[in-house]
Structure formats: C-alpha cells, structure tokens
C-alpha cells in the first residue's frame, strides 16, 4: 500500500542499484545491513544453543552430589565456554544483530555509515567465535573461567593451548566489537533522516549508542589485559608474575574496568527494546521518554565507576572500596527511573496481551529481582559472604537472562514479522513465555538460597554432607524446563518462517519508522528518504501532533547507492552520501586475520607474519578508491534533486567521525597501557626502573624528529586544502622520511638496553609500551605511504582529500602518544 507512493519503475531501479549479487559468492560480498543483521541473529542464537548445551551438561552433573558424568577437566571447560559463549558470543552479538537490522530502518537511512565495516564486523565475529570453539577439536577448550584470573591462567599453571585460544580469540573478537561500535556511532551522528533529531530517537537507539560509546572506552582495557596475558604466556614476560615485580591483581583491575561496563553493554540495548515495545502493547507513548533516555546514558557512564565491587575480597583499602560500593548503590537509581517509567506506561495504558507484552512485563519483574540482588552485593561486608557463591550465580542469571534473553525473545516475537513478513504463532508464543518464565524462576531463584547455604561457584561436584543436594536437583529441573521454553521459541521460529500468517507492513500498529516499510523491507529500505516531524511518525494523527512526517515522499537518490547525511543533533540534511558497493575485501580481511591469530596460537611466526602482511594489503586494497569515486569531477558536485553537495570532506564528515573514533579508541588503549605501568611501579618492591631512569640522549633528539614529522604532515594537508599538490607530496615525503628516521633511532634505543623484555615486570612494560608505539608509527607510515602513492596518481583536490585529513590525523595521534610515553617512561622516573 504505502510504498505505492513511489512509482514502480523507480522501485525497480532502486532494487537494481542496491541488490546483492546472486549466489553464495555474491552473498559473501554483500554489505546489506539487513542481511548482516540476520546473520548476526542466527549466529548469536547458534552460540546461545551451544552455551545452553554446555549449561545443561553442567546441570546434569550437579543434579546430585558426587556425580561423575563429566571429569573435572571437562566441567571446567564447560563452565568457561558457557560463560564465554553467553557473554561474548551471544549477548552482545544478538543485540548487534537487532541494531544492525533495525537502525537504518528506524533512523530513515538506506544502510549503516560504513557498510563494508559492518560486513567485516560480522565476519570477524563469526570467525573469532569459531576460532575459540575450534579449541574443542583438540580437546583444549579454555578452562580458566570467562574471567581467566592470573596466575591460574599463566603458563606455569595452564601450559596447554586452552588459555591461548581464550586470549587470542577475545582479542580477535574485540576487533569486531570495536569497529561495530564505531559504525553505530557514525551512523547515528550522520545518517538519520532529516528531522530525526536526538529527542525523537527510539530508546533502543539510545541504548545502542550508549553502549557503543562505552565499547570504545571499555574494550581496550580487555585487549591490553589479554595482550599482557598472551605475552606472559608466549614470551615469558612478567606482567602478572609476583616473582618478578608483576601483580596478579593488575589482571583483575583491567578485566573489571572492562567487565562491569560490559554488563551494561549487554543489557542497555535490551532495556531500550522494552522501552520501545512495551508502549506499543499499552497503546500509548512511553511515559518519561526524556528520563529514560537520560537514565540509559547515565547508567553507561556510572558503569565505569563500579568495577571494584568485583574485588571486595582481594584486600584493597577500605576507603576505595567504600567509594565503589557507593557508586554501585547509586547506579540503582537510573534503573529505578526506568522501572517506574515502564510501570507507569502499563498503568496509564491499556495492555494488549500479545506474546511480546508477556515477555516485556515478565522482564520488569526479573529486572527488579536482579537489581535488588545486585544492590545486596554492593554491601561490602555482606558481599564477603555472597561473592563467589551461588548467590552471585543467581544474581547474574537474573540480570543476563532476565534483562537480555527475555527482552530479546520478546523482541524476536515483535520484529520477526518485519524481518520475514510472517507472524509467529501466538499460541506457541504464549506457551513459550510461560514455560520459560516458570522454568527460569524455578531453576534460578533457589540458587540464591544455595549461595546463602555456603555453596561456592565453579565446583564440579559437592558432597552430600553439605546439604546442597535437594536444591540443586530443583535447579536442574528448573533449568531444563527453561531450556524447553527456548526450544519452543526455536520451533515457533521454524514453523512460522515456513508457514506463518502474512504480516503486512505494521501488524502491531507500532509508531516507529521501520513499520512504514513493507515486511520484509525492500533492499533499499525506503524508496524516498522520509522527513521526520515527531517521535511517533505512525501515530501522529491519533496523538494530535502538530507536525506531520513525510514518510512516503522525499528525495529518491537514484545516482547509485546514495543516502542522506544530516547534522549530528538536529538532523538537518547536509549532503548526499555515495555509499560503498558490495566487496570481497571485508571477508578476505577477516580470513587473513583468522590466519594471523592461528599463527600466533601455534607460534608459527612465519605464518603470523605472512598473514600480517596480507592483512595490511587487504586494508590498503579496501581503502583504495573505486574507479567511480576517483572520477568525481574537480570542484563541488551538487545533487540535482536535493540541491545538496555530494560527498563530504573534513573532520565532521562520515569518514572523519570514523577516524576520530578510531584514534579515541587507540588513545584509550595507550592510556590503559600507561595505567598498567604506573600501577606496577606504585606497587614495586624494588627500585623502579631497576637500572635507574632510562637515558635521554637518544630519545630527546628523536622526539624532535617525530614532532617535525607532524609539522610537515600538517603543512602537507594544509597544502591540499589550497589545492597545492606539490606541497602535499613534499610534505608527505618529509613526514615519511622523518618517521622512518624515528623508527631507526628507536631501534638503536631498544638494542642499547642491557636488559631484555623477559627480565622483569619493568622491562616487560617498557618494551611492550614502546614496542606498541613503534608498531603504531609503522602503521601510520603505511597510511602515509598509501596516501603518497595516491597523491602521485592525482587522487586529491581541495574538494576531495578526506583520506589525507584522516591519515594526517592518525599521524598526529601517533606523535601525541609518543609524548605521553616519553613523559611516563623517561621523565616521570626522574621525579619519582
């Protein structure tokens, strides 16, 4: 009905422009966010099932005291992989799947900001997941817990490949998570339909944007931690080795600096889903939209200040523990705001008892139980009893199943019609809810009691004497009932996919933009880019809104893959963006990264090196502009339909956002490296550095070299802004030469040391930090080299030099990081 507003030939033309090439090969190259979103969902659910099977095996083992269904080794692998699967391979990816599928549809765009990065993000996710799971093939699955505390995970106590699979697999997965998050941020900032100002975003979008920003700052903590772990294991370094100045607790600090924000990362988008879906089934807008949006953002921020509540039993000073306990209590307030917004929405609405409503209402109850038990763990003296007991197992499952799985299954019932064009069975749906809800509470509530009865976590068996048998049997029964509920959902998905009733465009009479398209949506999402005038575009008449969104009329953008770029806050149309076409580079890049990580796993350095070169080549080939983009005429191009410029340049462009976010992410990485250095030095028992402050005679002149290279790079980019291509070339050449000189002198600096990286925690930190800096200089040099080649080919003009701006920005970043490194490693010890 609706899309008839745009003529059929135009629709056909758009389909031709946006369609993915047919066949398996064609699909490997696809960058369609809907296809990628569906892949994410299917893959995440596959990992959910794998994690569920692991859980079922554990519950059979624990059903009665002293059972021997699995060996302790197997049990430890099962509980570790259960945690890794659920936390890393299911919980966030399933939300990324929904976000990938829904964001452009909700925001009124034709794709994500970086469609190819989106494809890369998926391929890396699935390959990293398979990398970790391939450990089962050699019988050496990770067995150190998902939290992998050192020194248990050090080479001395875990000599197998188990922990290497864990460390490298999660570093690998972090790439997917990070580029995915950057993509969401840039999409939100630049690709919303005109008028989709930030006060009109669905709360689900608020949730995903909050966690995307959190990811940019949180993942580097985990990456640094995992790199230390891998270096300790593979090269005998000493970050966590108390015998050589390392600190086991450094692992825990970095892990939970990442880990607690991560908990909010995997629930906030799900809470956003509730805030968007619940109102549809209460036949009214959400109560307190602004409060809920603010609560979402503030939870993400406060989430960075509570990590120590995972470490109350490690002997930290009381004063700092009290601070973190306070913060852990404060974070309950935004949750309270959300709960009462949902309650008021139901109270003042008229509930419509469809399956999604059941899941959302059931969620509210589970959320409160999980929240309350969370507050209990913030009470430090009581937490000494609760931590590492089954009480915490109960708490975290109320949080993760209650706040992630229940909304996600509800969201599946809600959006399945949009994704497939078919309704899911209501009857089976209600059954699945009640079986899941009853089974979950039956299985997981008694775990609270088991914890209070003194049952520790992560035990593969227990003695009948302790009295935990009957409740464990109940837990096992409940867990199996819950699993049956999940099975009903899967059956419903399959049955409905094959033979569900046709859904129509908007079966739930929902207010948001994704419901204005057909079900499933056309490959181009919107025949015409809509203009938005309210928070509920499809309810405007009935809510008596003053403005009316134009949903079925607007620019068609038919010159290739195009969408509109808008301003970040109020979403005014700024430009027409040329979107990338399908490409094999993302999947090729992901495969070469996989080879790299297998090389590192097996310590076949030649393989890792070859894959590293292949990866660099893939990046360069990916970024090499298409014939199309190079043939843009000099000077500004204007889109006739909208009178807007085509393409963007400068720091506020889509590409500029990506590079700035990458730089921010990398700067955070170095901040965690330096944090670790200062942490170790503050707890050092002996002189730090052992040989006295490192000499300055090489590094001070070298610093000047690097600063000079930044100046020439700046001079080069100013040159191309004035269309002076000679200045660009000369400036770039100077920067590259100066950068190479810097690296050479650094090489002398390294060899001048009379200690090796594996001498002590100090030498480990020194070489790791300066080594990573040198690696970044090398990456920056490669970027500048590619830009230089392109400059000689005449790719850049004053109207088209985004790549130059980005490469130069990265180069400046590398230089600024050096100043921080110089201050921390060379200057600070002189004043310590």
């Amino acid at each position, binding site marked *: 009905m609706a899309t008839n507003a745009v003529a059929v030939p135009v629709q056909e033309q758009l389909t031709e422009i946006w369609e993915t090439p047919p066949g398996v090969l064609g699909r490997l190259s696809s960058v369609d966010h809907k296809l990628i979103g569906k892949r994410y969902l299917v893959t995440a659910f596959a990992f959910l099932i794998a994690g569920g099977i692991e859980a079922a095996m554990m519950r059979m083992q624990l059903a009665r005291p002293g059972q021997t269904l699995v060996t302790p080794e197997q049990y430890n692998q099962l509980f570790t992989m259960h945690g890794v699967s659920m936390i890393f391979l299911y919980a966030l990816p399933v939300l990324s799947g929904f976000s990938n599928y829904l964001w452009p549809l909700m925001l009124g765009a034709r794709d994500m900001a970086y469609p190819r990065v989106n494809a890369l993000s998926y391929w890396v996710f699935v390959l990293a997941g398979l990398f970790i799971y391939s450990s089962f093939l050699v019988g050496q699955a990770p067995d150190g817990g998902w939290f992998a505390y050192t020194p248990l995970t050090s080479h001395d106590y875990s000599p197998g490949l188990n922990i290497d699979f864990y460390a490298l697999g999660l570093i690998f997965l972090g790439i997917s998570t990070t580029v995915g998050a950057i993509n969401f941020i840039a999409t939100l900032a630049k690709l919303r339909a005109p008028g989709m100002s930030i006060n009109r975003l669905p709360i689900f979008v608020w949730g995903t944007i909050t966690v995307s920003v959190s990811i940019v700052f949180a993942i580097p903590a985990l990456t640094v931690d995992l790199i230390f772990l891998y270096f300790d294991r593979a090269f005998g370094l000493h970050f966590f080795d108390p015998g050589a100045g390392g600190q086991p607790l450094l692992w825990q600090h970095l892990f939970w600096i990442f880990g607690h924000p991560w908990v909010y990362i995997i629930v906030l988008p799900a809470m956003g889903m509730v805030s968007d879906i619940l109102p549809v089934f209460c036949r009214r807008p959400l109560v*307190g939209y602004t409060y809920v949006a603010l609560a979402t953002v503030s939870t993400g921020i406060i989430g960075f200040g509570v990590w120590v509540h995972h470490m109350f039993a490690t002997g930290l000073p009381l004063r700092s523990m009290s601070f973190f306990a306070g913060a852990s209590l404060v974070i309950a307030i935004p949750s309270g705001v959300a709960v009462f917004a949902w309650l008021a929405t139901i109270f003042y609405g008229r509930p419509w008892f469809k399956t999604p409503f059941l899941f959302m209402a059931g969620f509210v109850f589970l959320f409160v139980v999980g929240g309350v038990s969370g507050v209990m763990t913030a009470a430090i003296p009581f937490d000494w*009893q609760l931590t590492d007991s089954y009480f915490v197992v109960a708490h975290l499952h109320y949080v993760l199943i209650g706040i992630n799985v229940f909304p996600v299954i509800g969201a599946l019932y809600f959006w399945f019609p949009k994704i497939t064009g078919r309704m899911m069975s209501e009857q089976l749906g209600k059954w699945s809810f009640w079986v899941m809800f009853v089974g979950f509470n039956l299985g997981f509530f008694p775990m609270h009691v088991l914890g209070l009865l003194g049952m520790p976590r992560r035990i593969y068996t227990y003695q009948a004497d302790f009295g935990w*048998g009957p409740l464990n049997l109940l837990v096992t029964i409940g867990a199996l009932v819950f699993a049956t509920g999940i099975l009903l959902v899967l059956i419903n998905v399959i049955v409905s996919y094959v033979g569900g009733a046709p859904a129509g465009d908007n079966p739930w009479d929902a207010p948001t933009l994704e419901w204005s398209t057909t079900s499933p949506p056309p490959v181009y999402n919107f025949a015409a880019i809509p203009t938005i005038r309210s928070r509920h575009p499809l309810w405007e008449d009935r809510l008596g809104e003053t403005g009316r969104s134009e949903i079925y009329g607007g620019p068609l953008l038919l010159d290739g893959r195009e969408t509109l770029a808008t301003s970040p806050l109020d979403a005014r149309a700024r430009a027409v963006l040329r979107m990338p076409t399908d490409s094999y580079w993302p999947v090729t890049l992901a495969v070469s990264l996989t080879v790299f990580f297998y090389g590192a796993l097996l310590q076949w350095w030649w393989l890792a090196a070859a894959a590293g070169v292949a990866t660099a080549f893939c990046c360069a080939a990916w970024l090499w502009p298409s014939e199309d983009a190079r043939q843009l005429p000099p000077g500004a191009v204007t889109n006739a339909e909208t009178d807007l410029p085509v393409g963007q340049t400068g720091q506020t462009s889509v590409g500029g956002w990506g590079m700035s976010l990458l730089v921010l992410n990398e700067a955070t990485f170095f901040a965690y490296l330096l944090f670790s250095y200062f942490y170790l030095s503050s707890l050092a028992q002996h002189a730090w550095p052992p040989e006295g402050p490192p000499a300055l005679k090489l590094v001070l002149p070298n610093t000047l070299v690097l600063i000079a290279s930044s100046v020439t790079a700046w001079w080069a980019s100013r040159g191309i802004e004035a269309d002076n291509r000679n200045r660009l070339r000369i400036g770039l050449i100077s920067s590259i030469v100066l950068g190479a000189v810097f690296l050479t002198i650094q090489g002398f600096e390294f060899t001048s040391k009379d200690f090796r990286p594996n001498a002590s925690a100090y030498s480990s930190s020194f070489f790791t930090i300066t080594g990573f800096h040198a690696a970044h200089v090398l990456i920056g040099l490669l970027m500048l080299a590619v830009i230089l080649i392109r400059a000689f080919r005449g790719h850049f003009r004053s109207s088209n030099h985004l790549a130059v701006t980005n490469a130069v920005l990265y180069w400046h970043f590398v230089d600024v990081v050096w100043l921080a490194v110089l201050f921390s490693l060379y200057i600070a010890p002189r004043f310590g």
Partner: protein
Amino acid sequence: MITRRTRIAALAVTILAACRRASFVLSSSGEPGRDEAGLGRLFTIVGMVVVIIVAALLLTAIFRRRPPADPNAIDRRGRGTLWILTGGVVVPAVILVTLFFFVLITLSTTAQPPYSNVAGTFEIVGHRWWWEIRRVDDTGRPQFVTANELHIPVGRTVRLHLSSADVIHSFWVPDLAGKTDLIPGQINTAWIEAEKPGVYAVHCAEYCGMQHANMSMSVVAESDAEFQQWLASQTADAKPPQTDDEQRGLDAFVGSPCASCHQIRGTPAAAIVGPDLTHLAARRMIGAGALPNTVGNLSGWISNSQTIKPGNVMPAMYLKPTDLHAIVEYLGGLK
C-alpha cells in the same frame, strides 16, 4: 487434596533435614560473620519488600479495571512523571543512602579484628588444592606447621594472615566469616571468632583449577584448654614408632616417594611440597576435606588418590601391599 498437601509437607521436611548440616550465612555462629549476617538480613528484607511492592504495582498496572475504549485509540493520558520522580528517584535515594550508612557502620566493626582477647595468629598458605597452616608467635616466628585443619578457642579472636604459594584461592568459613582472597605476592589479613564449639567447614571460594571443588578444610572451635592442648601437641615432633609394624611403616615411608613431598617432623622425611603429616592421625579429614580420615580411606588415598581427587598433585603410588599396610599403620598412629 490432603494427601497431596501431606506429601508437600513431607518433601519440605526432607529438604530442611538435608539442609540441617549446611551453613547459613544469614545466621552466623561467630564473628565477623554475625555483623555481616545482620547487614545481610537488613538488605534481604529491604530487597524482598522492594520486590513485593514492585510486583504488586506491576500486577495492579496490568490488571486494573479500565473503562472500555476504542482498540485503535492512542493517547497520552496520565501523569507518569510523578511515578518516576517518587518511585524511581526519591524513594530509592532515601533507601540507598540509609543502607549505605549501615554498610559503613558494619565495615567499621568487621574489617579490623578486635585488639583484646586475641588468641594469636595463624598463617594460611593456599596450595593447589590444600591449605598449609602455620602457627606464628607474636614476633612472627613460626611455631609449627600443619594442614587442612585449624583449631581455635571459642570466644577468642584468631588472626589470619593469608597468602598463596601458587594461584589465587579464597578462604571462606560461611558460618564464621566472609571471604578473603589468598593472593600470591601479597598477604591479606582476616580474623575469626566462634561463639560455640563445633566443626565449621571452610571452602575455597576462588576458582583455582581442576580440584577447586575439593579444596576444603575444617575449623574446629573448642574450649581454651583443648585449644592449648592442641597447640602443644602440634608443636611436638612426631611420636616415634611404637611397634615393629610402625617402624616398618616409617622405613617404607622414608624409602618411598612419599618422603620426597611430605614432612614428618622428627624423622628424616622433611620435604615440604605436600601437606605436613606430623600429626596426620589427629585430623578429621584427608585430601583437604575429600574423605573422612579412616584406615580404609587413607590406604585408598595413598594407593591412588587420582581416583578420589582427579588431577591432584599427588601421583598414584605403586607400593607393595605390605609397605602400604605398614605406612597406613604408622601414619594412623601419628596423633
């Protein structure tokens, strides 16, 4: 109907009976557990009230009577802001500030041991997967070393210095005190005090590898006189062999791989890789809580502990039956 109710009641009794011996952290038998439990009960009650109130609000919100309306209507009736500000901000803030006050008060009474009525210090060193226990005097000088069973006098405070020889462990006596981690490279302090005599289970609460599940020990709370006696007997060297059998047992022990890991003070066996066995027979359990200390269990453990506690550091022993018998006989006399 009645039969079903009876059956449910019977089931409840069974469950409670089975739980009889379990610890319960909300009702502690000593310090600092008692204060922790008090705070815990406060949080539990407040938490349950919050859950019940929100559940009631949720059910009311869902099922309250509503006037019939056009199913297609969408409107914005109701002032939800008041709900959010009272239920979501003001009430939680008041509750949380109050609770935090109690957290700080309880911290001040639980974190540091009392200074009076202290019955000395023990060092506890975590090993995979057993507990080394060292008595130190006031100057920190070691008095004796034992393993997996700690005695304390009722009503007096015992200080604990916790560290680890390998990976991170955590010391947890649910009946007496919450957890304190044993971390290599640092020494954490804790304290316990029992109010009445009894045997209290200790569990390792930090995942420490393959046999984390079987890393328990006992805290035996007894009268001060019994405690002094225990100290004296533990300080003494092992009792010399009394019979030919025991002598053969000692010789077999010293001549076998046993002596390359274990110490029996007063004999040539002086290795400290595994638990000290000087007074093994006085302990209630073997294998860090794996089995009761009986002749049968001990011979089973010595011949192949891997079947009992797979992956533990002690390898299977291939001893002649006569040697095994003699060793068990000798160890069984080491009160």
